[in-house]
Structure formats: C-alpha cells, structure tokens
C-alpha cells in the first residue's frame, strides 16, 4: 500500500470530511484534494510540492481521494505560518465536472445596469432570505450615492454592491488559513469551517466587501423565529461573510438569488468566457466599466452605464 495507508488516521474520517459536509442533492464531488491531511494534528504535510502531488494523485489512494487530474491552476503552494512549511492550498475545482460534461471552463461574472436600478432593495432581501444571513449581515447592498452634480441635472444613482469575485482576488492571497477559496470558474467563497475571523480579507479587499459576524441575538432580540433557527445553524460565529455567487445554485444551472429577484432586470450574470452568453451580449450593447479597475484586481463585475459599444468579456480596453 502507499504511504498514505500506513498513516491511515481513519480513512472513514477522511471520507466523511470530504463528503458529508455537503448539502443533500449536490454532486458528491470532494471539496479538496488534501486539506484534511494538512489540518490534522499529525505532522504529515504531504505532498509538499507539485511533483509529489502529481505522483500521489496517480496512486490508488490518490485516485480515490483526489478524483481530479491535477492542473496547475487548481492548486497552489503557499507558506503556512503555523506549520512552517509550504502547503497545498487548493482551488475547489469543478474541472472534473466540467471535463466530464465536456464543457469549457467558465468564468462567472455579473453586470449591474445602473440605468435600470431603481434602488428598491429587492436583491438585498432576496439574498438575505436565500442564504439566511443573520442580523446586520448583508452580502448584497444597494447604496444610494450622493449626487455631486449641479442641482438642475442632479440625479440619484443606486449602486448595487457585493463581492466582485475578482480574478486577482486580494482576499484569497491574504487569507492565512486558506479559508477563502477561488474556484476555477472564478467564484470566490469563504469556507466558514476554516475561517477563524482574522479579517485579513477585510483589510485586503479594496471594495470593503467582507464583514464579520460576531454572533448576535436574532432579529427580534429574544426568541429566534423558526426560520432563523433553521438558517443560523449554517453560520459560524466570528467568521468573515461575503457573497459567494450562490455557487450551489450556479452548480445546478440556476441564477444567483439577487439576479433572479431583480424587478427591473438590472442585474445579470453569465459566463464571461462564452461569447454568446447574456452577459457578453449586454457588454457589447452597453457602455460599461469595472469598479476601481486601476487596482488590477480584474473584478468579475461590470457596471452598465448606457448605450454604446463594448467588447466581449468586457475587456474593453
């Protein structure tokens, strides 16, 4: 047997870690390659580099526990302060699913049509209800921008904001525990099981997106409603909170809750890699900009501002 079986700290534990923390009904695809090995109290930190990784994955255990093919994008090696060595920090990968289904890898993005947004806050509540976020936590907000124009032409602009799922996400690189994960399809999400609330992400994010939930009473300052009892189970006190693109809905081919709920169809989403996707159609039709594009985060969000052309993928530059 391979070296793994010699240190078989309960393969059942490993399997259950991989599999049972997932939702009913989701495809039974392991979340990580090897994170449990890295987080156990044992000093095993295996594999240590890309070469070892590759050979491991060809072993029987490797195949059993790491059903994907390694790709260079799907894992990176980062020095972990606690363990004092480089460890594999994976991207949760849907490569397997995509390759099995013969799909090209997507990059999910959003558009927000500032001409259509009426500031009704429907997306804010739709997100809250779909995800069961606790009091004071809004993964989605709609800001009412102060107008600076001259009175005669003053207008109000309503600006929906949420996580931009940047390509070069500073939150991902700043997270010391590897709790923030960037999927190969672009979605950035926080694994609350891993997060310990350092809030390095909050400092790193130039859009002030992550917030922290320090636990609180329910909305009614007293007894939790039945709805709250069901939903608050999913939230760990002290963790960073942000939009995760409703990735479970995405994986089932459904739109995020905010997009689905928008009364004026101001919110849209789609695959930026697909030239025919609705998002690219909109980007072709309307002028757009990325928030704080100069910072180089390459956010997956485009604000549409009016009629005029653009390019597929939004890379209008």
């Amino acid at each position, binding site marked *: 047997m391979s070296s793994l079986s010699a240190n078989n700290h309960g393969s059942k534990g490993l399997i259950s870690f991989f599999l049972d923390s997932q939702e*009913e*009904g989701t495809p039974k695809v392991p979340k990580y390659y090897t994170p449990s090995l890295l987080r156990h109290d044992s000093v095993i930190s295996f594999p240590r580099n890309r070469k070892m990784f590759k050979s491991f994955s060809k072993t029987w255990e490797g195949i059993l526990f790491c059903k994907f093919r390694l790709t260079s994008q799907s894992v990176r090696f980062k020095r972990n302060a606690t363990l004092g060595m480089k460890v594999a920090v994976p991207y949760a990968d849907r490569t397997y699913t995509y390759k099995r289904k013969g799909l090209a890898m997507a990059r999910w993005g959003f558009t927000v049509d500032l*001409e*259509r*947004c*009426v*500031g*009704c*806050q*429907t997306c*804010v*509540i*739709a997100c*809250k*209800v*779909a995800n069961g976020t606790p*009091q*004071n936590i*809004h993964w989605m*907000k709609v800001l*009412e921008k*102060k*107008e*600076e*124009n*001259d*009175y005669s032409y*003053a*207008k*109000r*602009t*309503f600006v929906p904001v949420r996580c931009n799922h940047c390509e070069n996400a500073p939150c991902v690189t700043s997270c010391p525990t590897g709790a923030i994960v960037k999927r190969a399809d672009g979605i950035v999400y926080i694994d609350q099981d891993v997060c310990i609330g350092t809030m390095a992400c909050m400092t790193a994010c130039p859009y002030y997106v992550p917030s922290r939930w320090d636990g609180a009473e329910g*909305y*009614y*300052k*007293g*007894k939790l*409603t*039945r*709805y709250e009892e*069901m*939903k608050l189970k999913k939230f760990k006190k002290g963790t960073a909170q942000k939009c995760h693109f409703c990735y479970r809905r995405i994986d*089932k081919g*459904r739109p995020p809750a905010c997009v*689905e*709920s*928008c*009364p*004026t*169809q*101001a919110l849209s989403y789609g695959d930026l890699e697909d030239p025919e996707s609705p998002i690219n159609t909109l980007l072709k039709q309307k002028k757009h900009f990325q928030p704080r594009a100069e910072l180089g985060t390459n956010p997956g969000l485009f604000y549409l501002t009016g*009629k005029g052309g653009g390019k597929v993928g939004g890379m209008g530059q």
Partner: protein
Amino acid sequence: MAQAVAERVKEASTHQVRTQCTMCLNHCGIIATVEDGTVVRIDGDPDNTYSLGQACVKGRAGFFTLDSPHRVTKPLKRTNPEKGPGVDPGWVPISWDEALDLVAEKLKQVQKEDCRKLWFVSFDLVCPIEIPWALGFGTYVQPFSADLFCGNSVHPIAFLNAFAMGVTPDMPVTRYVLAEGGQFGAVGYRDTMRTTFETGRNREKIKVVSVDPSCGYGGGMADEWIPIRPGTDAAFLLGLVNVLINELGIYDAPFLKNLTNAPYLVGVDGQYVRDPDTRKPLIWDTAEGVAKPFDASLGDPAILGSYRVREQQVRPAFQVLAEQVRKYTPEEVSRITSIPAATVRRIAKEFGEAASIGSTITIDGEELPYRPASVAWYRGLSSHKHAYLNGFAVMLLQTIIGGLDVPGGLIGHHRYAYRATEDGLLTISDRPGPTHPTCPYPPRTVTLPTSIDLFELFPVACYSRPFAAKAITEPEKYKNVALQPKILLQRRSNMAFTGGGKEIMTEVFRKVPFIVSITSELEETTDFADVVIPGLHYLEDLQPRRGFVAYTGTKSAVFYGQKPVVKPPFDPPWDQLLSDGEILLELAKRAEFLDDVYAACNATWNLRPPYVLEPGKQYSYRELMDRMLKNMHGPDKGVDWYLKEGIIVRERSLKERYPGAYPKPRIHLYHEYMIDAGRQVEAMTRKLDIPWDTSDYMPLAEWRPCRAHTPKSPEFDLYLITAKAPYHAFTATGSNPFLKEVGDRLGYDCLLMHRDAAERKGLKEGDWVEAETDSGKKDRGRVKLTTGIHPEVTVVWGSSGRWAKAATQGGEAKGIHFNSLLTMDDEHMDFVSAAVDCCLRVKITKVEGN
C-alpha cells in the same frame, strides 16, 4: 422558474403554495416555500401574468413576521380606561367566547339604535366576506383604512373617462411616460412595484420623465427628472395643454369631435346650450352651418370658433378650454412652478410628438389607434387643497391627444360596465354602492347629510372619509347632522398612524365609545381599542379574489388569491381558523344577523343555484368560499381546487383590452355637471349654516395656489412633503425587521433636505432639527442632505415615525410622523374631493441632539 424552484425542494417536509401577497395594494401572486411548518422564502409566481412572476423587497420579506413576538395570540380586553398613543391599555387575556360575546352584544345594541353607527373600517377589501357582512348588518365597509390619502384626484376622473377605478400607462406598448408626482416606474401606490416590473422589461423603449419635487426613486430611474414646486402641478399640466393646443396645434381633432364632449356648445353661463324641446345638448355642424342635437347625423362637428344660437354667442367646449388655458404661458408657468419656460415647451413638444396622433398599430390582426404617450399620477396630485382640479388637469392632457384606452395610452383597470346618459355621455352603469369609490357623473343629488363623514355633501367625490374626523371632533360646526359612530370595528388597518395625525385621531378615538381591532400584531391603533381579537397573518388566511385582474392592455387576465399557507401560532377558537372572515361570521351568528349576511352574499357574489345560500342554515367559511368559487369558475373549481392550484389565466378580447378603439359614448373634456352640483352643495350648506367652500366646482381645470404657496412669514421658507420608498408601505412593513434594517441603513427616518438650504441654515449631515409648520405643529428629526430635491423642499418618508412597540422593537420612536404635522382646517381641505392638503410650510431650526 417554478420548476427550478420546485427542483430545489426534495424533502417531504418542504412544499410550496401558490398564494397572494398583501404587503401593499399590488397583491402580487407569490409562491411561498414551506419547510417544517414555517415559510422560509417567498418568490414571485411565474404563472401569474399580472405580477409577471416577480416579488418585490416587501413581499420577499413578508413571511418574517409570522413568528413575531408582537403577534396577538389571545383575545385581549382593556383594563385601563385611559386611552392615548403609547398609553398602556392594561391588556388582560380573555377567552374567545367572552370576546365574541362582548362584541356581539355591542353590535346588537347598535343594530337596535341605528345600524350605520357601526363604523367598519378595513384595508384592502381582500376579505370576500367584509362587504356582504357590512351590508347584512346594515352599513358599509370603508376600505383603505383612514382613507386620508387615497385617489381623490384619480378615481373620480378614471370612472368618468375610462369607466374604471384607476388608469395606468400601457407599459408594454407606450414610448413616453410623464410621471407627474408619483414616482411611476419605481414605486407608485395602487400599482406599487408591478409597474416597475413592467417598466424593467421595456426600459430601453420608453422615455420616462419624472416631474416631482423630490428625485427619490422615480426620478432616480427616470431618463429625466424635472424638479417642481409642490402643489403647482396643475399649472405645469395646463401649461403643456396650452402649448399643445395654442402654440403647436397638436391635438387629436377627430377623437375630440366624435368621442368627447369637446364640440358640445357652451353658453355664457358655462352650461350646455340645449335644444328647447328635447333638452339635448347642441353641437354646431360646420358642414351645414347650424346647431344640431348631439345625436343627429353630423357632417363636421365644430370644436373651435364662436357661433350664434338663439341670440346667444356660444362656443364649443374645446374653444372654451383653448381660451381658458391661454393664461398658462410657459413664462407664467415658470414663475409658478420654477420649471424653466423652455422646459415646459420642450416637454409639451416631446409629449405631443410621442403621442403620434393619427397613427395606428396592428395588434392581433386589427388596426387600432396608436398613442404611445401617457401621463401617470397618483398621490402627488391627490393630497392637495385643489386635488379634484388636479385630476381634471392631468386627464385633460391625456384626453386631448386621444390616448385613452388605446394602445400606448392610459388604460383603465378594475373596470365597470358603462352606458350613455341622456346627454350622450359615458357613465358607469352600476354605481358601486356597497363601497366606494363612486362615479362622479351623474352627480349624486345633494341631500341632508346623515353619514359619519358628511358624504352627502360631496356629490362628485368618491369618498369623504377625512371629514369623518372633522365631523366627529367638531360636531357643532357641522350642526350635529353627521352621525356619531358608536362602534369602530377595524380589521387589518391602523388609523391611528395613517389618519390625520396623533392629535386629531386621539380625539376621534376617544369619542367612539367602543373600539374593536381584529389584528395580527399590536400596533398604534390597538392603544385605543377596547377589545383586540387575534387576526391572521396574510400567509395564514383563506381569501380568494372576487374576480380576474388585468392591468395595461395585456392579453391575459388572472384569477388567484390568498391561501392559508401555514397555521397561526395560536390555538384556534374552534376546529380551524382559516380566515378573519370566520371571526366576522361568528359575530354575525352571535348578534343574530347571519341570515342577512347570507342574503348579502347571494347578492354581492351573484350566487346562482345550486350555490345560493339559504336562510336558517349555517355554512362554514370554507363552504361559503367553496360556493363562491364554484359559482365563479365552475363545479370543478371549489376550495379543494383553489387550495391545490388556484390560478386561472384567461385571454381577453381586443375590445376588453383597448375599449377606446371601439365605438362608445362620449367622454368628458368639459365637466359641465360640476356647475349644478356646486349649486346644490352651496344651497344645502347655506341652509344648514355650515361653513363650506364650493369655489372649486368648476367645469374646467385651473391652477389655484394652496395655503402653502405663499408663506405666512419669511422664516417658513421651506416646504415639507412626503414621499414613498419601495421597501415600506403603509404600516404593513414597519414592524418587519428585515425591512426596518434596510430602511435604517438608508436613513429612512431622516428629514431629507437640499444641501444649499442646509448650508444657508448652518446645518450639516446628521444634525438634529425641529420642523415647525406655520400652523404650529412640531416634530424633531435628523437631517440628511442631497441635491436630488427641489431646493425649497424637504421630505419625510411616508411610513417613518412609527411609535408602536412592534415597529420600534421596544426602542425609541424614530423619525418624524408626517401626518401629525398636518392641520385639517378648512384652508387645508379640498371640499370637492375631501382631500387633505399635504403641502406644509415649515421652519427648520437646529436643535441639540436627542
């Protein structure tokens, strides 16, 4: 989308129910997802073509209050005799039997005395039992709560010109919408978010121009926001009419000649010139050069010019109008409204050109007139001293372009059947008696007032509820003719907050000997109740709609309704509590008028055999609903079908969708009936020696300044008005923690002010100020600055300032309660439509923080 929603649900403990939201008057179709006995999410119903598969922020948050700790779970009786806002009533729980017997006893006493002394107030008429119950008792149910700020400038004119309760732009087809003081496209009352759904679908095709003192949400989404001084919309609208008729010559002459009373000849007294024998109004036929009765065969009816008939110089009504509006030159309009004259001309030109007069469109194979320009309005024009005239002005604009009930124009909703009067003019054929609104034409004969709200003195209004407060608190002023109510029974309404302010409503409530509230949560009004009976949350109530609904010229009309999605969080008084209607029926049984209620059900629901209710029997609520549904839709569609499915979409004919394209009686351009109606009111009020103002009974719109237009003294330099936000409506939302949280983040409880005005007064963002009206009413709030507001205007959002514990979550009352700053004196009331003037003049001064 429904399939996708269903796919998410695999477990047996989760299921979905199609039902109806009642967070506002829109009543969108929704799908409630139930998990383990409680609702966990609400989505739009994709099968509902009326609400277009959408649910707004309020609807999506609505389920959260199911488990509110402020729910009334037992009947309560007052032990503290003192009644006041925030004064603890000293509730003790009593049994259902005791509560129902107590109320039934009072009802029996009132029945012996005078049935009309039961003041029965509800909200949205969703409960199908309310109307027949009230009729069975011998009174009327009065909907829309305090009814202070409802469609005073909307319903009468909509009945008159569209034989419908209201009108809305034909969003799927129109190209230009002038939103006049109503945030149309973002949030607007009757049509709260439904229009938003539809505007969103067609956004790039429509130019939306918002004319509003506050940019708000409507101005924010519009293509152009035009700030206007409050209370001056009639001047702007008449300015547009003047430019269209007298400068640009843009108006739909064939439509006016043949389908309106524009050619009716008007004498110097302002009334029709009539044939001496037949009394028919005359029209001048230019083809033959004579005056003929309106129903003679006409060559070419004249709408302009001056003619001699029987030694009198007479003019067609349209000529009278054209001359009357000349004084609204763009320069004069600019002086009144603060809108630049060039803008007035430009908007008139845009609107007139967008109307595409003379063009047609083919829909479903038929060629129909095409007028893709519409003006939308609601509260912004209704809450004024001259509200009725405002309604005239705005409808005038739409009428002269021929854009009523045709593709792209204003389309009526909640229609009635119509007929022609002897004068050949359109009216509705069944006057809706059981409840208001009522049609203004022909005007009701003015009789000695006897009702609680002096309705008899309002022959052309659709209701007059604000005067109930006046008649109750100042009975001597009105010579004690008005009925003083003995019982106030409220269901799902909160008059303490939505009425004319804390002061006057406290006085009103203290004068009613017995008050009963059927409510799901304790709120502002229950502070005054003698008995509180647990009411159901809208997600617990079985209330089918009484018919189909359709807005705009869309093809389909929908039937659906409210369902008991979950059980109430308290033990029902009997086997099951399916509806608030059951409580009413039980009261009818104990007060011994149940048979009368059944008779009224037979009449109002048009029950035919075998569904007719027989006296002497006892039908459960469920059975009543079963009969009502089967009678409406067929023997296979009773309650079981309704609970399981409960939606029917039917197609409408082109004539149903666009009745303006087909022959029908003439509609009003010139409101000649007002003259006689005014005289009757004048005569009656003089006879009774009641102070009354009949100066607004005029046949044509005019702009008249309201009290606030000229400040009493220079320190009252700002207007204070109110406006809506999309995430709050009435008092349906203030106790919902999700919506409260959103509102708190956005500063909903603040006083919105222009930056320049703030600078002048040395105010900074977040400063505490006191707002004092020129009638001496005061309140305090924090200031929020913006440039998205007319510099002379400040805004307090509509549902802010709630003080009930359910809304403050036990904390301090936040924000200014706008209604408490109102003064319901004669200067601030519209004596034609009973509207209350909401243009306040205020002095804003900085105060130390709270």
